[in-house]
């Protein structure tokens, strides 16, 4: 089964680094630099997991999260952000985020968490 991951971050360097990291682990990876592009990619690329930044120009990560979850409830969304306030975390969880990882992050943890989400999907949960 192909593992498909969408990385959404307004910083191109971060997208490129994570893309290369996950491609080395046999993921098919797409990237997007803003909310609108992310929604488009979710529809077209049909990823299992989305890594979603919060602070982005235009539609922010939380609004994007809501739209993804409204239209594609099966897609797992992991918030990956430098924003670490209780309100943001709670709001993300309320909107259905599947995890909330703050930057800087441990690559080992990120990899494990993405794999966990893939495994959950495989089990049909």
């Amino acid at each position, binding site marked *: 089964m192909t593992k498909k991951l969408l990385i959404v971050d307004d910083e191109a360097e971060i997208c490129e680094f994570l893309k290369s990291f996950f491609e080395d682990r046999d993921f098919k990876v797409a990237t997007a630099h803003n909310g609108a592009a992310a929604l488009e990619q979710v529809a077209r690329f049909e990823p299992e997991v989305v890594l979603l930044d919060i602070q982005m120009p235009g539609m922010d990560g939380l609004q994007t999260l809501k739209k993804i979850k409204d239209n594609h409830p099966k897609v797992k969304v992991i918030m990956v952000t430098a924003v670490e306030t209780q309100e943001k975390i709670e709001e993300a969880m309320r909107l259905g985020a599947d995890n909330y990882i703050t*930057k*800087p*992050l*441990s690559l080992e943890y990120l990899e494990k968490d993405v794999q966990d989400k893939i495994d959950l999907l495989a089990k049909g949960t």
Partner: protein
Amino acid sequence: MPKNADLLTARKFDYQEVLRDVARSMVRLKRPDRLVKLITRFIDRQFGLSHTALLVLDPKKECYVFVNSKGSKRLPMGLVKFDTNHPIVQWFSGSQKKLPIQKDYLFLSDVKKMLSRAEFRMASNSKGDQLLAIQRSMQNLKVELLVPGYFKDTLVGLLMLGRRVNGRCFTTQEVTFFQTLAHDCSMAVKTAEHNQNLIEQNRELERRLQEIERMRSKEQKTYYEIMRSLAEEVHAKEPYIFGHVSEVERLGMMTAREMGIDLSGNTKDLLSAALILHDVGKIGIPDNILCKPGQLTQEEWRVMKTHVEKGARILEPLTDFKRVREIIMAHHEQFDGTGYPRGLKGDEISIEARIIAVVDSFHAIVSSRCYREGRSLDLAIQEVRNCSGTQFDPVVVDAFLRALKKELLKKGEVPGVLKEYSVS
């Protein structure tokens, strides 16, 4: 061939020279982030690497974060961290004491070699797991060489070097050079951290000092207010002259102004406090003496005179009022040296005390006391003039009477005795 050799020599650089430059920059640059940038950029240019990165211990977050990265395959800042239990951190933290400094670095190729040996021996132990994790992590970051920097046995920084673009290996000399740089970076980061802590501690101390000063001044103010009401209390014992304190203050300030005394800054407050508090020591004089209707005996006078020292003592806790205490101590000294308690004369008595002596006596004469009725303004003025040069400073007496005349002129009731005083 010789031409090629020349080219090679030209490409080489003087390591010592570079290290001296770095050391100089360290001293010059207060901000270590600039030095760190300088070092990574330098390495990137000189050695032609795919990328260089520096990982530094963040003591607040208890993890290692990337502070800089250079090169075509550079790492994004602020994305990746190493927790203190990360296998690479563990490797250098644990092995640091065991390994001699010459070996204190790690090539990806060496990790691979060690792993193949471990596999060869079928050793499935924690060391093998650790090496595997290290290999994965180095491959994730596309790092060929790791060089640690320590500060007092703590792993502070980790220099990460990518693949050499021309495919050549690093020489021992180059690795030693990297070790020195990694060490310098760690030192710079630690020093800056230390400086920052000192600055913060300093700020905190200053804040506390200000707080203490604020509390102290508040306390002094409270004490002053208590003293003021005590001073009122002393005179309230004699109900006829309620308001003596504020009247003496008014007359005293008026005289000082007439004399042209500079009342800017806290001089005014000190004089005003001395005028208000001059008799506060009377609180310690028994009522039968203080309010005795009639002449005091010699013994009673002795007790009465102690109000000067008593007043000074009461004010001791007011450290801001040292000067006020001295004034109060001297307000019964006389210009000719016949006063008490010390028999000071002329300029030995402070100007404030000389002013109090005049206005206090004057107001005492015009006020009713428990032992007699208040006397006329004429008589009081006459009395003050009679004592000018003996009990009182003539300059003060002149100024006081001039000021008094000005005031009475406004009311249109100048007594004849004041005629000779010219009012400008």
